[in-house]
């Protein structure tokens, strides 16, 4: 389903849309307060952007360096060119250790690779442990937001799900109560799971270790109880040095939720005694754009979701209106770099207001790139026949003084039908044509 159609579904419930819009705006405002409290915020953004750009220019070197150091720390490193290979690697590790149950903390990469269904099919139970992800998992839904996976749900909906799946008290929708029930349920799973899967926020080349940031402590608890830890990372997660973390950790949580830092910023540099740690380095089409000057910048994204929270389209159309794993402005960009034909409609899911670009902590020029993708989309002929025809007619009329004059004079006759013809005019008022043109009025003045 394309974006406008899916958004229409979401927009049916006006009260819910208003609530959704405000919930995200609340997060955006918290971000603003946090960012404004740092005088040197712009310098930090500048530095973060430079570090990412530098790293992407020497990515092979840093990946190689990272692997070398990780290996000498006793971590097992795997490389996967695509999603299928990634899933296979993870499965084989679990199979080797006869692990039937894994706890997983948030990882958009495993979502991108569809790891959960892959493992489930092979008899392995995957339990998402981030509360938001757990909620959507119990409802058999995908996350609708990369940082706030259940932002589309009201507490009553979550309460109903918990009543059914976790047998909580009927009608008790108190967030503290529901959170505590989830804690109790998941505690059991943490203690019994032999495997733990996490994502990676940063991978430090000179150290050969990774950083995982959470608020809930689920990555910490999961990895420290299980005997095998598997961390999945995209090739773009690399940063060269420890000191660069000083810049990124100051930006990440403030941009994401308005917190000064996440509760846990955990460094995994080696396996715990008697245990195993694996890192799977995944490409899955990322390297396709590494030489593309325009679009390689999107690989700098640190997945803070600030652009999502601020986006007027996302706030009013919901995460499920985007057909790609990651919703919102940067998700649309990522989708477009993968398959413009398939995801091209997402380049148009933007007002081009530029708020995403202004807020991005690593200074990705998101809305400029969305515009560039629109051009490419048209050039490659992916636009629908109806739209193409409308623009063609429009262009030839506007280009020709004679045709323009006829069109203007007869516009009032067409006006009632325009609404039906005009794709843009749906839900909008079409202005009535003026009785006299500027040219005519001006002519009379003389």
């Amino acid at each position, binding site marked *: 389903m394309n974006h406008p159609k899916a958004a229409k579904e979401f927009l049916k419930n006006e009260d819910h849309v208003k609530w959704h819009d405000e919930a995200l705006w609340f997060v955006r405002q918290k971000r603003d307060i946090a960012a404004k409290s740092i005088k040197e915020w712009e310098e930090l953004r500048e530095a973060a952007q430079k570090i990412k750009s530098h790293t992407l220019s020497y990515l092979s070197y840093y990946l190689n360096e990272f*692997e070398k150091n990780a290996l000498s720390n006793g971590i097992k490193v795997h490389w996967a060119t695509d999603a299928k290979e990634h899933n296979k690697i993870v499965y084989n590790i679990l199979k080797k250790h006869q692990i039937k149950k894994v706890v997983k903390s948030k990882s958009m990469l495993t979502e991108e690779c569809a790891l959960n269904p892959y493992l489930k099919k092979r008899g392995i139970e995957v339990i998402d442990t981030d509360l938001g992800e757990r909620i959507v998992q119990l409802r058999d839904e995908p996350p609708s937001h990369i940082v706030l996976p259940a932002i589309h749900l009201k507490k009553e909906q979550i309460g109903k799900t918990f009543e059914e799946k976790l047998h909580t008290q009927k009608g008790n929708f108190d967030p503290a109560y529901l959170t505590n029930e989830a804690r109790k349920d998941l505690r059991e799973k943490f203690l019994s799971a032999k495997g733990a899967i996490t994502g990676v926020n940063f991978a430090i080349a000179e150290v050969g270790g990774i950083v995982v940031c959470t608020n809930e402590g689920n990555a910490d608890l999961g990895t420290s109880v299980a005997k095998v830890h598997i961390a999945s990372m995209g090739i773009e997660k690399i940063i060269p040095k420890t000191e660069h973390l000083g810049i990124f950790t100051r930006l990440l949580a403030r941009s994401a939720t308005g917190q000064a*830092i996440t509760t846990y910023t955990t460094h995994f540099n080696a396996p715990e005694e008697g245990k195993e740690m694996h890192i799977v380095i995944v490409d899955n089409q990322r390297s396709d754009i590494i030489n593309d000057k325009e679009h390689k910048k999107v690989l700098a994204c640190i997945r803070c979701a600030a652009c999502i929270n601020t986006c007027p389209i996302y706030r009013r159309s919901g995460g499920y209106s985007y057909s790609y794993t990651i919703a919102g402005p940067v998700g649309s960009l990522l989708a477009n770099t993968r398959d413009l034909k398939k995801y091209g409609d997402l380049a148009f899911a933007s007002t081009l207001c530029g708020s995403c670009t202004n807020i991005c902590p690593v200074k990705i020029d998101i809305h400029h790139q969305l515009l560039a993708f629109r051009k490419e989309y048209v050039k490659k002929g992916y636009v629908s026949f109806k739209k193409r025809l409308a623009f063609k007619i429009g262009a030839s009329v506007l280009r020709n003084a004679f045709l323009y004059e006829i069109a203007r004079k007869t516009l009032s006759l067409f006006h009632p039908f325009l609404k039906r013809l005009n794709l843009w005019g749906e839900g909008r008022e079409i202005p009535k044509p003026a009785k006299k043109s500027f040219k005519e009025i001006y002519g009379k003045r003389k």
Partner: protein
Amino acid sequence: MSSKEKILKKTGEIKTPLELEEFKIEKEKIKDKTDSFLTSLKNAAGEGYIIKKDDINKKLEELFGGNLKTASVYDYQTADINPNKYKKATELEDIDVAIVHGDFAVAENGAVWINEKNNRHRALYSICKHLVIILPKDQIVDTMIEAYKRVNLKELKHAVFISGPSKTADIEQSLVIGAHGAKALTVFLVEGL
């Protein structure tokens, strides 16, 4: 060709990078680091106390005396067990209070750097109900920039910045303290440690 070779072939040749500039980011000096840290910690839902070295045991007794099961790898009078003596992390599940040592704290965000080489179980920090971190009062840095300049990450196997108790706002953006990790966190800034 291996997958590694395939990926590196696409990401460009392996060449030694040009020196990346050192970022000298101007910032406002924090006047009172202790005060700033305690405020940040409070914002992160943690609580802090400034106490004298000789009063640690007294304070622990005052806060956690009674029926609570306490644990520490250090020699504190109140600690009921030494977690290092247990083989499995799951055996630590019933710990009420874990008392650990931090190296230094960060004024801007209330985080404390914990890297205990003599602690056997990493799970200790997140499996307990209440985490107590003890650190010298004069070990507070301004921001994460200074923090990461101070640590020698290459030498460490595991380390963590913890800022307050575990929390979540995944249900309707309502902040709930106590997700999967500790439900409460207390920092002792100790004078003369």
